[in-house]
């Protein structure tokens, strides 16, 4: 059953909500205005903690807990909104911006107030130039209405929000690489700890949250923790904008409460509408390119963090790629690892060399159809040398496609080796 009231994709309830006047008419910016007048930042942090909101960018870390890591009394602090969405299968951030941009900006502003910060940057991947313009306009409208700038609504609170466009590098979605990029350096990850909440942008306490995460905040504060928690499950409250793509009839973004079975997302005529041509499901990648693969036997997995983890994968960014039996597993692994090879920043050896050699072997096998006797042990040996040894999660993620393919479809690799 589709939601009657959406939390994020509210254009489905209010068709012109991307217009500032319409957003205002349905109560937009009122939550922020009331919070500035009536609530302390600490009270807001507590409500976000109580709501159980979890980071939508992939890690699923509780947002309020993350905010609580900020060291007391250390200023300035920065808020970064991560819109560097660049992983195969992910495509909800820029659509949320297209459809409901003002809620994103209100979410950034309200969260900035909650963490007592006066400068927020929205880091968008360079390709999202038109979405960046949309947000620039939404920000300009918020300034004009007095919701941003100096001494906002006479409360003494100051806030500036800026858009910063990246220039084509997936790694900049990694939070510390994002900060390096924003500082004008190569987008390469930093060693953690120190974590960004303690020492982040320009060495100051910094909170980084995904677009979808921050867009939830005004709704939590407006409608209350109990209302929010009436969606989803105990440990994964709220809704998620699932991005489904691949061989389904109706690829797209669908906002569902957490816990809906994978089968419903794929098969329901309300959502992806089943497989093209009625072909069987072969591979399901449930949480972006870095998630271990599932198969048709996992169709009853509930789509929440715990359910997908119990099935042996991860919910990640909620980007679900579904492939039918027309694809060959070694080829899917090749294409996925080619992505990670291209996007490897080159900083650490296991990732830089590991992705290079994986792709070299997989290209010969999957594209040229030529296998050598040692290929399968070689592939196992390469990913084992990467696993647990990479500087950041990019390299670790590159292990998943090849490991899954070898585990689930060994016969397809053997067939290539046998010729």
């Amino acid at each position, binding site marked *: 059953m589709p939601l009657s009231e959406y939390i994020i994709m509210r254009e489905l309830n209010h068709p012109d909500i991307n217009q500032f006047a319409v957003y205002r008419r349905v109560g937009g910016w009122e939550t922020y205005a009331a919070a500035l007048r009536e609530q302390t930042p600490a009270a807001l942090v507590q409500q976000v903690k109580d709501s159980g909101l979890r980071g939508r960018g992939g890690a699923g870390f509780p947002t309020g807990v993350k905010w609580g890591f900020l060291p007391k009394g250390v200023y300035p602090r920065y808020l970064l909104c991560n819109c560097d969405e*660049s992983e195969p299968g992910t495509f909800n951030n820029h659509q949320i911006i297209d459809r409901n941009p003002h809620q994103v900006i209100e979410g950034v502003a309200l969260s900035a107030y909650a963490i007592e910060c006066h400068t927020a940057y929205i880091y968008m991947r*360079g390709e999202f130039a*038109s979405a960046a313009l949309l947000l*620039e*306009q939404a920000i300009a409208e918020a300034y004009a209405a007095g919701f941003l700038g100096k001494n906002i609504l006479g409360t003494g609170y100051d806030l500036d929000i800026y858009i*910063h466009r990246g220039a084509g590098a997936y790694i900049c979605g990694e939070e510390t690489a994002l900060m390096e990029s924003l500082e*004008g350096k*190569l987008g390469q990850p930093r060693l953690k700890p120190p974590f960004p909440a303690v020492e982040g942008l320009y060495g100051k306490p910094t909170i980084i949250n995904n677009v979808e995460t921050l867009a939830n905040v005004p709704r939590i504060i407006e409608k209350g923790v109990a209302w929010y928690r009436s969606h989803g499950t105990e440990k994964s409250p709220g809704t998620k904008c699932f991005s489904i793509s691949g061989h389904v009839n*109706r690829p797209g973004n669908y906002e569902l409460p957490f816990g809906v079975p994978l089968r419903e997302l794929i098969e329901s005529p309300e959502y992806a509408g089943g497989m093209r041509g009625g072909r069987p499901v072969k591979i399901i990648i449930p949480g972006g390119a870095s998630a271990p693969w599932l198969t048709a036997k996992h169709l009853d997995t509930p789509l929440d963090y715990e359910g997908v983890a119990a099935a042996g994968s991860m919910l990640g960014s909620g980007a679900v790629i579904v492939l039918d039996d027309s694809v060959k597993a070694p080829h899917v692994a090749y*294409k996925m690892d080619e992505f990670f090879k291209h996007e490897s920043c080159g900083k650490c050896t296991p990732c830089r060399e590991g992705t290079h050699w994986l792709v070299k072997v997989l290209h010969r096998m999957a594209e040229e159809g030529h296998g050598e006797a040692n290929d399968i042990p070689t592939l196992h040996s390469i990913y084992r040398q990467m696993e647990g040894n990479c500087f950041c999660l990019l390299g670790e993620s590159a292990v998943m496609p090849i490991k899954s393919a070898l585990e689930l479809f060994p016969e397809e690799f053997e067939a290539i080796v046998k010729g």
Partner: protein
Amino acid sequence: MLLQTHQAEIETIIGRYPSKRSAVLPLLYLAQDTYGYLSPEAIREVAEILELPPTQVFEVVGFYTLFYDRPVGTWVIQVCDDVPCCYVGAEELIAALKATLGISEEQTTADGMFTLQRVKCLASCDRAPVVQANLDYIYDVHAERAEELLNNLRARAAEAKQRGVSGRFAEDYLLGPQGIVHIPRDAPYQQERGERK
């Protein structure tokens, strides 16, 4: 020189950050929009404005894929070839574009109109195959639409030339009374979930 032609814009950009170095990406975009690509002189100019050693700007240009350190076509056509695009028509589209244009990936047509690139994830998997032409997204471009796509782009280049718009990334953006206005070229999403144009 950028500092002469875009001084106010440059000052605004630098003013957004506590550190000048943070302005390196926006200023490289500005230089690229103005000059068409990032020549060594353009890169040194950005370094000078930001008081950075030139090597720190050169390495940034090399790191990010949207910066071009050599001349490119009026249109840079980027086709995503990742999963799932590659399984729903991206490879066929790339083959059609190569055949029609008579070039391979990373090459530019002799008339200087098109540069063709294979790229990684454009984050629009629901409307694959997807193309980004300069900074415009064009969705659902199956191979049979290749010819139409190229003709549209040629017509837009001619139109931009007539308007006297300079800079290869600027042709779709006009300065209106309310600021920058984007002229949408591809049908927007319809509000109804799942329905396509």
